[in-house]
């Protein structure tokens, strides 16, 4: 692999990471990590379940500007 190719891949990975963080796609992973640390014995909700809970929370949107 050439250096330019490596740099391109690293940039693309950075963009993907940024978008995943921005859109909340990685929220579930963070939630799982958090749950495992606080309640190691309890089962963790599945992604499908989690996304439903998350949207309940999003039901109260923050203010949007003009």
């Amino acid at each position, binding site marked *: 692999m050439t250096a330019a190719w490596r740099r391109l891949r690293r940039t693309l990975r950075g963009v993907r990471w940024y978008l995943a963080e921005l859109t909340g796609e990685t929220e*579930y992973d963070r939630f799982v*990590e958090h749950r495992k640390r606080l309640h190691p014995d309890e089962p963790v909700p599945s992604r499908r379940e989690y996304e*439903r809970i998350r949207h309940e929370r999003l039901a109260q*949107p923050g203010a949007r*500007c003009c």
Partner: protein
Amino acid sequence: MKLKSVVTWTAVAIVGAVCWGVLALARGESISAIWLLGAALGSYAIAYRFYARFICKRVLQVDDTRATPAERLNNGVDYHPTDRRVLLGHHFAAIAGAGPLVGPVLAAQMGYLPGTIWIIVGVIFAGAVQDMVILFFSMRRNGKSLGQMAREEIGVVGGVAALLGVFVIMIILLAVLALVVVNALAQSPWGTFSIAMTIPIALFMGFYLRVVRPGKVIETSVIGVALLILAIIAGGWVAQSSWASAFTFDPETLTLFLVVYGFAASVLPVWMLLAPRDYLSTFMKIGTIVLLAIGVVIAAPVLQADAVSKFAFDEIGPVFSGDLFPFVFITIACGALSGFHALVSSGTTPKMIEKESQVRLIGYGGMLMESFVAVAAIIAACILDPGLYFAMNSPAGVTGGAVQSASEFVNSLGFVITPAELDAAAAAVEEESLVSRTGGAPTLAVGMSDIFAQVFGGEGMRAFWYHFAIMFEALFILTTVDAGTRVGRFMLQDTLGNIYKPLGRVSWKPGLWFTSAVVVAAWGYFLWAGVTDPLGGINQLFPLFGIANQLLAAIALTVATVILVKSGKLKWAWVTAVPLAWDAAVTLTASWQKVFSDDPKIGFFAQRDQYAAALERGEVLAPAKDLDDMSTIVTNSTVDGVLAALFALLVVVVIGNALVVCWRAVRSPEPLPTTEEPWQESKIVAPSGLFATAEEKKQLAAIGAPPNGSGVRTDDGSGGSAGKDGDSS
């Protein structure tokens, strides 16, 4: 300061100064928009590097050893430390909306210079300061909202006035933004079809995210954006086909659609409509703004408008009434100073910040970006031929709505445009007509299509870019309408819940429907009044919107000043008190004129008296066409006048109450009790700016975190937990 830094900042200062110099000295000749950009970016850089830093260090005394609420209260949900670059994206997406696009377009009536100067100076000394300071104070109080801070710092009266102010202001905001959409879509089958398609697209995305691929937001958004582009292209086909009439509506019908839509969006579960729309509009917003910035730099269009037009001082212009002071400041609104940002800065953002010093990047930096959008908007409006600009932005009452009469009207203003040129301009973007397409969005779209067509795709793409720009604005205005209606509904449920318990319960269906209907009816009323106003809705309602927004900023700056005084920083209180004094002077003058001016073109009550007197004599005054129009004008100007008075009164109450509190604080021998959360040690290591400094990189390396990301220090100081960052490893 190191030598390299001194040299760099001297160079930035020189570039900025040269650009300002060119703007100041160019008289009677056309200049390139590049000079505006250079002046803006140079000034932003200096302000960010020096003024924002001074406020952080001296005034706020940010303390990176102190743990932020995100670190202390981390629950993985609303409180969690978020990478500063990601949080900047979140914050910017929440503050950026249609306001900084529309306001500058209307303000271009007075020439490009007054608007540009206020956008740049205003953001540096008022807007960005407000956003950063409120973000900081809210962060020190676990992310309390502006309303809560007003109640705790100023008192119950101030708190209630602030809460009421926020609600009424939101209603006007929603009505004015919806009016912009209605004016952009009326009689335009292409635009209406594309925007209508966003509803099935959002529903599809919602279903896909919930059932097919839960949580795959990027994938879903990519599909959504592709469908959106397809909808814009297909709009062109529909407009050419026999279906065109099915998507051609008058403003009244579109108003009804919007009201029904707003109600549905408020009562439906968020995953169906609101959340997917939000993803779409965030992507479109950031993408288009980046495209516009690149386009302006590459195309370097020439400004055709005057630097300062005669409507600034000598005459009343057709787009909005009143003199430069105070109305240019009222009209620019969000691009320089926006009270609404104080709600975002005291909402989710303070709960996610990693390090105290990052308030400079996120609060101040985010607002500089917003201001840059406003500069791009004023450029897009000022590269249009002034004749076309005034033909598009003068209300139908004076242009008559046809190319012939519009051309005559524009000539009477002292600008030249022939009926053939007006037809050609409309044909170039494949619209029926561009005459009296008020509201700012169509003007901005013509300007943007001009820039984009020069850079991407040439003349043949002009119509596509025009409708792309309309779609981009309408999309995020509708997102604001969705979210705003819901926020208003929650505020109402919250308040009414104190009177009748079940209404406060979020899940009680009748309460939900009732409060949603009240909120929709409230903005729907003003929207309807704006659409049917014979005098032109935008020039009647936009000043009210601007006054409302700027008065909310006055409330936010008052809260900030009170906190500074109460915490014993009287000598630094000028940082927020000076912009507050200016903002209060501007808005209270504007309100005063709107209420008490004898000129019926400016004062709502003078207007009311003029038309009411004529109505009593049975006369019809132009631009009214019949007696019904006459009584509509009388009703509207009464309501608008009462509102202008109410806004001003609310703010006078808040400021008056605040003065009493400040006086008490200054007289008190000891500092008043603080509402800040106590100090706790922070273990997070993260850079404060966009890029890590050499020193910060060293600290990050010591705990094994990526060079531009962040990590957590462990107690023995030996190692750290895994850092997070994308562009590393």
